[in-house]
C-alpha cells in the first residue's frame, strides 16, 4: 500500500485536516502539533519512505483572496520525495498558529536538511520553529529589521543609495560606513573553541567560488568545525517574482545558477506550464533537452576546471582545456538565442526561437570531438597519483547522510543512490532517450569526479539522440492565451493583434492554485513552488535550489580533514553562490 493519504489517515485519524490533489501531486494538510510525528511516519513507514525533504518553506496568505489554508495567516509547506520509490512527490501543508508571529514545530530531528531551510523561512517570513537548534538569520544580515517575504513588508520603501549627482544627500556619508577593524569585535561563533585557530575563509577567497564565507576552526591544519555564512549574493528573487509577470521571471532565473541558465529556465517554464496545464510541442521539448544537456556539460566543465584549479593550483592546464570546450557550447547558445551566459532561451509554451539552420551541423561537429576531449581530461587526472591522493576518501558522504541532508544531483549519485529525476520523473520526454545514470558507491570526491565525468558523456549521448530524432513542427505552443502569436500573423489577423496586446500588457493569468515542480539540473533538484492567486503575477514563488541543500553538508564532509581538503570539498560540491543565495 503506497497511498500516503490512506496510510496516514489510518495511523493518525485526527491529524489530517484536508487533502487535495494539486497537479497530480497528493497534498495533505495536517495539524501543526502532529507534524513531527507525521514526518517520522512518512519517512519511516514501509511503502511510504519519503526520505528526502526536497523543500520547506512557508507562505504568507495576507493578500490571498481565497486562502489555501483558511484560518491562519501563514502556512508551512513541505515537499517530500521518496528516493527509493522513484522520487514520488508528496506535499505537506500545515496552517501555522500564532497569527502574525507564526510558530511551527521544527523538523530538524526528522530531516537534518530542514535546519537551513527553516532558518531561511525564519529569516524571510518570520516563522519561529520550535525546537530548532540554531534559529538565526541565514540570508539577510543579522541586524536586518523585519522579514522581507511577508506581504506587509514595505515594498520599495528602502532607502536606495543611488543618485546622479555628488551633491545629493546619500553621498554625504560616503566612506563613513567603513569601520576601523578594532571597532568591531571578533565574532567567533559560540560553539568554536578559542584554543583553536579560527580562520575566516571568504567572502573574498579564491577557492570559495564567489562570495561564500566559511568560518573554520582549525586545530593545527585539521578542521574541527566549519560554519558557512551565506547570503552575500542574496538578491531577493523570490520577492521580485511577486511583482513581475510570469513570463518576465524567466530572465531572473538565469541569474540564479548562472553557469547553467538553461536548466533554471527549464525548471521555471515547466512549473508554470504545469500550473497552466499545458505542454510544449514535441520540437520545443527536444530543443529544450538539447539545451539542457549542453548546459549540463558546460556546467560540469566549469566544475571540472575550477575543481582542478582548486586542488591543483593556477598552473594546472586543465582549467583552460575545460573552458575551451565550454566556449564551443556557449557559441552554440549564442547561435540560438544571442546570449552566452544568461540565455533566457526558454519560454512558457516553448522556446524563444527555432534552431538556426547552421546549428545542427555545428553541434554534430562538436559532438564528434567531445569524446576525445573527455578522454584527454581522463588521461590528465583519472590515474594521476596526486589527483587520486587528493580526492580519494576526502569529503565522504554516506548514502544515509546524503539523503538526510537533502543532497541531490551528482553528489547523491556518488554516494550510491540511483536517483535522477530525468529517469525517476521524466519531463520533456526524457524517457524517449537511451542513457544511463552513473552511480558510484564510494561516496568520496573521487567518485563524484567519476559521476560528473560520465554524466557529461551521457549528456553528449542524449544530445546526439535528440538531434537525430529532432521532430519537425512548431517550437512554440499554438495557444494565443499563453504564447504571443507569430509576427507575420499580426499584420493579417485582428484576433492575433488583440492577443498580442493582451499578453504584453496584462500577461498571462494562470488559474488559482499552487504547484511544485522539480527537474534534475546540473547540480541536483531545481524546483519551483508557485502559488497563483489568479492574477498575472505569481503570488508566491519559492525556488528550491540544489546548491543550498548541498552546501549544508559541507561541515559533515570536511570535519576531521585537513585545511587543504576543505578546498577540495567546496570544489566537489560544485557550488554556485547565485544558486545558494538567490
Amino acid at each position, binding site marked *: 500500500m503506497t497511498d500516503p493519504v490512506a496510510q496516514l489517515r489510518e495511523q493518525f485519524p485526527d491529524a489530517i485536516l484536508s487533502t487535495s490533489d494539486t497537479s497530480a501531486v497528493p497534498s495533505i494538510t495536517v495539524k501543526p502539533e502532529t507534524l513531527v510525528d507525521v514526518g517520522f511516519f512518512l519517512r519511516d513507514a514501509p511503502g511510504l519512505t519519503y526520505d528526502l525533504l526536497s523543500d520547506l518553506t512557508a507562505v504568507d496568505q495576507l493578500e490571498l483572496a481565497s486562502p489555501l489554508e483558511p484560518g491562519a495567516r501563514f502556512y508551512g509547506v513541505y515537499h517530500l520525495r521518496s528516493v527509493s520509490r522513484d522520487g514520488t512527490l508528496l506535499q505537506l501543508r500545515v496552517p501555522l498558529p500564532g497569527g502574525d508571529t507564526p510558530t511551527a514545530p521544527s523538523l530538524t530531528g526528522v530531516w537534518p536538511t530542514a535546519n537551513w531551510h527553516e532558518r531561511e523561512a525564519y529569516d524571510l517570513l518570520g516563522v519561529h520553529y520550535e525546537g530548532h537548534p540554531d534559529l538565526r538569520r541565514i540570508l539577510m544580515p543579522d541586524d536586518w529589521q523585519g522579514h522581507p517575504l511577508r506581504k506587509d513588508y514595505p515594498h520599495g520603501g528602502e532607502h536606495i543609495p543611488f543618485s546622479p549627482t555628488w551633491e545629493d544627500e546619500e553621498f554625504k556619508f560616503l566612506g563613513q560606513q567603513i569601520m576601523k577593524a578594532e571597532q568591531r569585535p571578533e565574532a567567533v561563533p559560540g560553539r568554536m573553541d578559542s584554543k583553536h585557530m579560527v580562520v575566516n575563509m571568504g567572502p573574498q577567497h579564491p577557492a570559495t567560488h564567489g562570495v561564500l564565507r566559511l568560518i573554520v576552526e582549525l586545530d593545527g591544519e585539521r578542521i574541527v568545525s566549519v560554519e558557512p555564512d551565506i547570503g552575500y549574493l542574496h538578491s531577493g528573487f523570490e520577492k521580485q517574482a511577486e511583482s513581475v509577470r510570469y513570463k518576465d521571471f524567466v530572465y531572473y532565473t538565469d541569474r540564479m545558477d548562472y553557469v547553467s541558465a538553461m536548466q533554471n529556465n527549464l525548471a521555471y517554464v515547466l512549473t508554470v506550464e504545469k500550473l497552466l496545464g499545458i505542454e510544449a510541442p514535441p520540437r520545443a521539448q527536444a530543443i529544450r533537452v538539447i539545451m539542457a544537456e549542453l548546459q549540463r556539460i558546460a556546467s560540469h566543465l566549469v566544475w571540472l576546471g575550477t575543481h582542478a584549479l582548486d586542488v591543483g593550483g593556477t598552473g594546472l592546464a586543465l582549467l583552460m582545456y575545460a573552458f575551451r570546450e565550454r566556449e564551443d557550447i556557449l557559441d552554440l547558445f549564442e547561435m540560438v538565442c544571442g546570449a552566452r551566459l544568461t540565455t533566457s532561451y526558454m519560454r512558457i509554451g516553448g522556446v524563444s526561437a527555432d534552431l538556426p539552420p547552421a546549428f545542427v551541423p555545428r553541434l554534430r561537429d562538436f559532438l564528434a570531438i567531445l569524446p576525445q576531449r573527455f578522454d584527454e581530461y581522463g588521461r590528465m587526472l583519472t590515474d594521476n597519483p596526486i589527483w587520486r591522493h587528493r580526492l580519494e576518501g576526502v569529503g565522504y558522504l554516506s548514502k544515509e547522510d546524503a539523503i538526510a541532508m537533502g543532497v541531490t544531483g551528482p553528489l547523491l549519485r556518488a554516494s550510491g543512490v540511483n536517483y535522477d529525476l530525468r529517469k525517476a520523473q521524466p519531463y520533456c520526454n526524457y524517457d524517449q532517450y537511451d542513457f544511463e545514470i552513473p552511480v558510484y558507491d564510494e561516496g568520496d570526491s573521487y567518485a563524484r569526479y567519476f559521476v560528473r565525468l560520465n554524466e557529461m558523456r551521457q549528456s553528449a549521448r542524449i544530445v546526439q539522440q535528440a538531434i537525430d530524432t529532432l521532430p519537425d513542427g512548431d517550437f512554440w505552443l499554438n495557444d494565443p492565451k499563453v504564447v504571443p502569436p507569430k509576427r507575420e500573423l499580426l499584420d493579417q489577423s485582428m484576433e492575433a493583434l488583440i492577443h498580442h496586446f493582451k499578453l504584453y500588457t496584462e500577461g498571462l493569468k494562470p488559474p488559482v492554485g499552487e504547484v511544485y515542480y522539480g527537474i534534475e539540473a546540473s547540480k541536483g533538484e531545481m524546483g519551483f513552488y508557485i502559488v497563483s492567486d489568479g492574477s498575472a503575477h505569481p503570488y508566491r514563488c519559492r525556488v528550491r535550489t540544489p546548491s543550498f541543500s548541498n552546501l549544508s553538508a559541507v561541515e559533515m564532509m570536511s*570535519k576531521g580533514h585537513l585545511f587543504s581538503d*576543505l578546498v577540495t570539498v567546496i570544489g566537489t560540491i560544485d557550488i554556485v553562490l547565485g544558486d545558494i543565495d538567490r
Partner: protein
Amino acid sequence: MDLSSIDLRAIGAWFHGLLISSGMSQTGIHVIEALVGALLLLIFGLTLVIFLIWLERKLAGRIQDRLGPNRVGPYGLLQTVADALKLLTKEDVTPLDADRVPYNLAPGLAVFHVIMALAVIPFSNRVIGADINVGVLYLMAVGAIGSMAALMAGWASNNKYALIGGFRVVAQLLSYEIPLVLAMIIPVMVSGTMRMNGLAVAQGSIFGFGWFVWTLPLAFLIFFVASLAEGERAPFDLLEAESEIVAGYNIEYSGMKFAWFFLAFFMNSWVLAAIGTTIFFGGWQGPFVDQLPALGVIYFLGKTMILFFVQAWVRATFPRLRIDQMMSFCWKFLVPMALVLFAAVAIILKLNLPQPLEAITLLVANVAILLTGVTLLGRTQRKALYAPKRAFTPTIPRL
C-alpha cells in the same frame, strides 16, 4: 666576429691594469674587483628574472592553450617590466600589528639568499663568482636563509593565512633540505670535491657521457623532486597555495616588497636548475668548449633553461599535494631512498673498481634502488587507495 677572440680574461686583465695604474693598494684593488664582480652577478640575476617570468608565463600560456603575455613589447617581452613598474606605484601597506623588523627584513632576505647562491655557480670554466672549495656546503648554508625569510614573513605579518603558510614553510623547506643535501652529497662523493667548478670539471668526458645524471639517475631524480619542493614549485607549492591559503606567507605584502618575493621565487627556481645543471649535467661542459671557452656559458645557460622548462611543465601537469602527503612522501620515500643510495654509493666507491666498471655498478645500484623503492611505494599506496573513510561520525538521526 671570431668567437675565440672573446677572452674574458683579457677584459679582467685590462680592468686590473686600470686599477693598478690608479696607484691603489693591493687590498683595495681586490675589494673593488670583488665588488664589481658581485655587481655584475646581481645585474645578471635581476635581468634574468625579467626574462624568466616572461618565459614561465609564456610557457604556461602555451601549455594551457593560451597565448600568454603578448601586449607589451615584442612577444610580450616587456610585460614583466610593466608589471614591476606597476608594483612600484602601489601603496606599501604594513599591517597594523605586524612585527615590523622581521616583516620588513623578510623580502630582503628572500632575495639576498638567492643572489648569494649565484656567487658559486660556474657559468663557464672561468666565469664564476667565487670558486670556493666548500661550494656545495655554502649553497646549503645560504639556502637555509630562504626558509628563514619565509618563516619571518609568515610570522611577522600578523595574519592567520600567513601563519599557516609560515608553519608549512618550517615543515616543507626544512624536511626537503635533507633529501636535497643527500642527493647533492652523492656526486660530491664520486668526484671527491665540493668545489662547484670541480664538479663540473669532473664530468668532462667526451659527449656528455661523464655527466653524473647517467651514472647517478636516482640521485638526480631525488635532487630534482626535492628542488621542486625547495623552490616552492608545483606540485609542492603549498607554502603559497593560492586556492587554500591565498598566498601563504606573503599574503600581507604589497608593492615592491611583494615584488621582491616574486623575484626571489623565480630566481630561486632558476638557481636550483643551475645547481642541478652543474652537479648532474656537466655544467658548462660541451663539445668544443676547450677551444672556445665562451661556448661554456651558452651550454650552461641552455641546460639550465631546459631544466627550468621542465619545472614549468610539471607545474601545468600535476595537482598540488596536501601537507601530510608531502611530508610522508619526503620522510617515508625520498629520505630512506636517498640514505640507501648514499650507503650503496659509499660502498661501491670503497671497492675501488676500475673506471668503466665503477660507473656501470653505480648505474645498476641506482636503478635497482629506484625500482625497489617505487615497487614498495606502489604496494603501500594501493592499500591506501579505494578506501574512502569518514574522518568523523556525524551525529544526525539515523534513517
